[in-house]
């Protein structure tokens, strides 16, 4: 149509060469996958008989058949897949989409192989519905915590205080539930506590320009100290404050009757439903609203946002505060949401940090972060499901498994990810 002004301009190449860092990552993940494959191969030959995988449990109305598979060939096949993928990674460079698919294939093979091996010749079947239902339950606080992390980090405030925010909220929910005997009032109080701790984070990070990581650690310590002190002074010996009701699972009429998915998705405690809605809300707010665009802009390039008249500090603050709402909801899970009165400052059990890991592995995207939270929930529930099956594996190892998987996933398979460009950077006008 139009004549080219510059004759014979070369076409832009998109060639890449493997950098040493990427090569190291590829080789190490390949080796790791291959080693796991070898372990599974050894496991295959030590297992005998059949594995039973149940698709429904004794209380479900619609009974689904229990699948029986011969253990040795299935585990051996899974091991072979892992060895193949690992060998492939070690042998040659795999371009981007294929490497992801190969990684997913290896993950699925590992899961199938592991579950079948665990269930081989066990006295009880491995109940898949329980596993998946529990996954969502364990993932609930992680998902909510991750939403808090996504909101503050997208605005450029590094948040390692999720744990402390959740702990404060957990305690507040318990006390208010004891006082009012109203779980919704308690939930509201938890949200308020989450927001208040976010105010603390916001003021010191944005007004007094304190280092975000140091500040986060301080808030976590403060939360432990404060809740522990208050618990011992006020709550411990007061039977009134110590007796707290728990939100019971709510079966959604109709949907919960569906075979297989019903008992997994639609018989959950209220906070699990709230968590799923929260993910959608955070995604919508960040990507579909004006405010969300501004939040992302101040996390990436605050100076640019300033030059178009955006209130940088105000925007960051508002996002941190909104994050506090989700940390509050997540914290409530540990008391009124799932288990009752606040008994120890250990209730949050590192979930806030796992939420942070989910944020990073999910590349600061709410939906991906939620999927990562589900992944952590899955591995935690796996330890529970496998427990009664009399596996040859010590239960301590099973408990540690989720964390082991986290390290492997973060270090080996995910590698370096790029966060918001100005995450953790103070913004001062005129510099």
């Amino acid at each position, binding site marked *: 149509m139009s004549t080219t002004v510059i004759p014979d*301009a070369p076409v832009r190449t998109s060639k890449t060469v493997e950098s*040493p860092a990427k090569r190291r990552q590829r080789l190490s993940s390949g080796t790791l996958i291959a080693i796991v494959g070898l372990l599974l191969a050894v496991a295959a030959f030590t297992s005998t008989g059949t594995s039973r995988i149940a698709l429904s449990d004794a209380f479900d109305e619609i009974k689904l058949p229990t699948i029986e598979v011969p253990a040795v060939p299935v585990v051996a096949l899974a091991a072979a897949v892992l060895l193949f993928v690992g060998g492939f990674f070690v042998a040659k460079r795999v371009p981007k989409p294929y490497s992801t698919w190969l990684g997913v294939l290896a993950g699925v093979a590992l899961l199938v192989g592991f579950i079948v091996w665990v269930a081989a010749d066990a006295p009880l079947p491995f109940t898949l519905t329980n596993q998946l239902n529990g996954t969502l339950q364990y993932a609930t606080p992680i998902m909510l915590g991750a939403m808090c992390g996504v909101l503050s980090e997208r605005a450029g405030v590094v948040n390692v205080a999720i744990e402390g925010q959740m702990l404060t909220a957990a305690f507040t929910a318990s006390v208010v539930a004891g006082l009012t005997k109203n779980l919704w009032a308690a939930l509201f109080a938890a949200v308020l506590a989450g927001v208040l701790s976010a105010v603390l984070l916001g003021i010191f990070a944005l007004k007094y320009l304190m280092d975000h990581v140091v500040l986060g650690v301080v808030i976590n310590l403060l939360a432990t100290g404060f809740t522990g002190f208050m618990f011992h002074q006020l709550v411990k010996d007061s039977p009134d404050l110590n007796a707290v009701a728990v939100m019971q699972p709510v079966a959604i009429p109709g949907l919960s009757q569906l075979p297989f998915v019903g008992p997994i998705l639609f018989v959950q405690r209220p906070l699990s439903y709230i968590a799923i809605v929260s993910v959608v809300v955070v995604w919508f707010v960040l990507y579909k609203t004006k405010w969300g665009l501004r939040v992302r802009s101040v996390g990436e390039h605050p100076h640019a946002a300033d030059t178009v008249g955006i209130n940088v500090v105000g925007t960051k603050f508002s996002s941190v505060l909104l994050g506090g709402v989700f940390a509050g909801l997540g914290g409530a899970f540990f008391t009124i949401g799932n288990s009752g009165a606040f008994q120890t400052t250990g209730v949050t059990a590192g979930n806030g940090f796992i939420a942070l890991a989910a944020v990073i592995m999910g590349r600061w995207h709410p939906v991906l972060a939620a999927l990562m939270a589900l992944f952590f929930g899955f591995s935690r529930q796996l330890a529970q499901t496998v427990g009664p099956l009399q596996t040859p594996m010590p239960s301590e190892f099973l408990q540690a498994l989720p964390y082991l998987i986290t390290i492997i996933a973060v270090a080996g398979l995910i590698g370096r990810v790029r966060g918001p460009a100005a995450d953790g950077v103070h913004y001062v006008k005129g510099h």
Partner: protein
Amino acid sequence: MSTTTHSAPVLHLEGITKRFGSLTANDSITLDITPGRIHCLLGENGAGKSTLMNVLFGLLEADEGRITIGDQPLLAKGPKEAMDAGIGMVHQHFMLIPVFTVAENMVLGSEPGRAGLLSISDARARVRELSERYKLDVDPDALVEDLPVGLQQRVEILKALAGGARYLILDEPTAVLTPQEIDELMAVMRALRDEGRAIVFITHKLREVKEVADDITVIRRGKVVGQATPDASETELASMMVGRDVSLQVSKAPARPGEPRLVLDGVTVAAPSGAVAVDDLSLTVRGGEIVVIAGVQGNGQTELAEALLGTLPVAIGTVTLDGVDITDAPPAETLRAGLGYVPEDRRRDGFVGEFSIAQNLVINNLREFANRGNLRLDAIEANAIERIEEFDIRTSSHTAPLNSLSGGNQQKVVLARELSRDLSLLLANQPTRGVDVGAIEFLHKRIVAERDAGTAVLIISTELEEVESLADSIAVMYRGRIVGIVPPDTPREVLGLMMAGVSYEDAIAGREGSGE
């Protein structure tokens, strides 16, 4: 074309003073910005041009002085007020968010949509409408980080125009552009002027000023030192800028190339992201000649320099210096092999700002200035005094921290340090970036002297003036490859086309084709 904005009043800055601590960046500056004219602010780096414009745009608050538009005082507490008053600014470092699309960047701060929702389709429409109106083509859905700098700048200009700018400030807009892109930009500037807008064009490049300016104001050390008209000669403008007579041309004898000293054979280097930055590049530099790698920033020059030094790995190919294979050798080895290295960003890679001049002068040569781990302080001091004298480093004392020196004097320290060793190859990346015109002259002379001493000299530069005045031969680099090696008297248009990837033959043909 309708001239809807021709009635805009004059923007008047009066007695603007801005201090940073003890430094007076702007000292009582008075300036008139008239609609329908291109007003060039000419001054060296650090003269206070950008500070002045940041004050005008509301990013900085002036300590004294006032700004009026017509008879209305402008009280810009922030960019928002400045934009509302019709002031738009295209910043030297683009104020674009790399991971956002063009449309998202364009509407940021004044997003379309109801009830807090963001309407991307309206944003796209707005971009299309603007790019149609000003004949500046951009794809609304492209990610900014994927666009070449010329297009990013176009987005910046459209962004300013979208805000209804009647007074458009362009802060050093040509620094990152190819010569062709600069020509396009100047055409855009003229078109906007003819529409009745006022353009403030900040630069330190004399040729550009002469080409496009209607009014010229020269600023030196925060003060207006005078006005000039576009028919003033470059030498006149330069001496106004520097405050004394300067010669813009380096007089040098013809090169007498000797044996090849640096040989690059099929070198491929990946940027840390894994993208190929230097692509199968072969080049030979002989002793006693200056080869200048010319090209637009971001075409692999930085990666090439870092690979030669040894801070980036060479993926494929070999590098030899005086017959010794230094491929992938760590910096300690390449430096010992006789490499003198002047980095692109001296503040980051060239020196330790808190250390004194004397310390910085020996920092990569401690072997010579230490005795079993103890620094030989008297030798270091003697060395410093000698170098300060030899390189005309303007300082109160050799114990002064390097941060306290001007850019030009800092660069002299870096060059002095490198040249005080026995070199086989001097590799200087942007040796005069951010250096005042007076010091440029000196640095160029020293580099030529090093050539005459038989050293192979490889310069990387994006400034055509520097390329032309230093080079014995020019290697034009584009997307990691050498497009061609041409003599220094190659016409600028040809160099410009080559910097956009056109081969020498095609560039010559294209020039003749369009010239007649």
